[in-house]
């Protein structure tokens, strides 16, 4: 088959982004599966393989395929950076109008892609995959994941049943404006809700790993909890930066004030001033000062940062 490079390189309709880390066995089958699904659709598309500093032959195999197919682009990292940075690189370099991300270990099924495209065509900005028949261990993987997703949904206000599924479709302009770093890919739906996006969720196939080993462990729990706290802060912060810390400041000033008044009252009524309690109350006064100042600092950061572009991204002018 001969592809005309010019046709495939400029603004394709679709970019499929796949981060790969030590997936030498998966590269070939994955490429063939994606092409097999996309070719009949008659769309212009590109595939981005992001090699996240693999130590095996992943890059060599991918670049061999890319030599024969200009629609496959391979981005090679100098070192292992992690899954989110790999996705971010793919998103930064993608040229399509619709972006699809998926795992490189064949756990996601490319055959689901057409369903995602339909959902996007219906007017959704983000479509998330939901592995409703997950092929994983019940106790160590599925149950923690269900609990985590419930909590994430409750806290972020975007109830997605499966935040951990990599198979997602986005409108390019939306996802390109979201800062993606560290492990934040799990929270993309929540982050983009800042911009008022419309999120849909569809069931996808999930296959057990055939090659390689799972790269996750239980040690994520601390990280997820901290990230969740960060997301909550960011979501609140983006609207009213001062409020978050000022609320804390008010609470601690009230706490300190009430205690201090009581001590003062006791003293005036002729008792002994309770030195210890008064000092404790004063510490809360200090805390409230600190929190107010932190709030001011946040206002400053908000003014200089790129926050507002995100918060007012999606709007209609009539």
């Amino acid at each position, binding site marked *: 088959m001969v592809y005309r490079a010019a046709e495939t390189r400029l603004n394709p309709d679709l970019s499929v982004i796949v981060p790969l880390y030590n997936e030498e066995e998966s590269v070939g089958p994955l490429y063939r599966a994606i092409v097999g699904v996309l070719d009949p659709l008659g769309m212009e598309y590109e595939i981005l393989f992001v090699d996240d500093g693999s130590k095996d032959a992943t890059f060599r195999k991918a670049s061999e395929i890319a030599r024969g197919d200009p629609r496959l682009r*391979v*981005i*090679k*990292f100098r070192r292992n950076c992690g899954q989110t940075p790999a996705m*971010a690189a793919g998103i930064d370099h993608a040229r399509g109008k619709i972006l699809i991300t998926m795992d490189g270990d064949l756990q996601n099924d490319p055959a689901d892609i057409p369903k995602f495209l339909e959902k996007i065509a219906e007017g959704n900005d983000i479509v998330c995959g939901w592995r409703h028949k997950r092929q994983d261990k019940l106790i160590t993987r599925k149950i923690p994941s269900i609990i985590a997703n419930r909590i994430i949904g409750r806290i972020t206000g975007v109830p997605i049943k499966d935040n951990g599924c990599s198979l997602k479709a986005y409108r390019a302009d939306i996802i390109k404006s979201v800062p993606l770093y560290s492990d934040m890919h799990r929270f993309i739906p929540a982050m983009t809700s800042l911009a008022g996006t419309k999120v849909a969720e569809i069931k996808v196939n999930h296959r057990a790993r055939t090659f390689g080993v799972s790269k996750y462990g239980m040690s994520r729990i601390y990280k997820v909890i901290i990230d969740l706290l960060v997301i909550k802060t960011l979501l609140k912060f983006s609207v009213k930066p001062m409020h978050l810390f000022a609320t804390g400041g008010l609470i601690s000033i009230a706490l300190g004030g009430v205690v201090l008044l009581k001590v003062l009252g006791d003293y005036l009524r002729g008792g002994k001033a309770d030195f210890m309690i008064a000092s404790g109350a004063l510490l809360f006064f200090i*805390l409230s000062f600190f929190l107010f100042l932190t709030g001011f600092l946040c206002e400053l950061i908000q003014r200089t940062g*790129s926050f507002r572009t995100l918060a007012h991204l999606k709007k209609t002018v009539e």
Partner: protein
Amino acid sequence: MAETISVIIPISERHDDIGEMHREYRDALLQAGTPFEMIYVVDGGFAKAYHELKAMKERGEKLTLIKHARPFGEAIAITSGFQQSAGGIIVTLPAYHQVDAAELPKMIGSMGDHDMVVARRWPRSDSKWNQLQTRLYHNLVGRMTGNVCNDIGCSVRLFRRKVLEEIHIYGDLHRFLPILSHKQGFRIKEVDLKQSPKEKRVRTYPFGIYVRRMIDLLTVFFLIKFTKKPLRFFGLTGSVILVLGFLVTSYLVVSRLLFGVSLSDRPLFLIGILFLVLGLQIFAIGLVGEIVIFTHAKELKEYTVEEIIN
């Protein structure tokens, strides 16, 4: 190897006789046989060294001379030399005796396809006290940042242009360039160069210098581990202190309510509250850090692309 080598020599407080240094380095580089240029960056004052270099230049010596209006520190000196340089390979050399200049050709020859070659003064000929200091320091550096090289104090380094194009150095970060480059995924190699027999001086620094080194190390440690996720660091310290404060306070409150032990003569109460307050403050700072990172995440690329095909 036809690539031009740009030699950058920052001149700050510590420098030996510049004329002598220049001759030594120049002769060694001529011996290596690669085209090279020499760039001196005078960081602020140091009129004597500056005039000496100027006189050398007027005598027809080939060198570029940059002078800072005031001292900005060695990292910035290297950066401004770098901006002036044209070579594909950069060599930084100290303006004082550290390695035997005659060993430089060996170092240049050993680059291969590495991105950076770091010198290690070995065998050493200086005092045992100096060696002990170096050893102790590296033990600590290795523990905090991972063992990348064994002589971070040696500023003889050879690296490709792209290294400094990608890594922004400031303050005292030039010292840790090998560690930062390693973090960015550059290939690093260490070579043993004979120590200059002239580096004999026993180095005992004022106490403040040692403190500053420790702070530098802490900075690098933080930069390497937690730049993208400040709350993972602050959150851990913050929650430990918070939990401690909570336990102490609730123990005291419970004993007050149930057993009527008065709080007034329990100084522990103050410590409990102090910990609570401190824990919350640490958390708040971590959150501010996260907000800063988030606002600028688009500019701070977290990945380093080596190659793109198609």
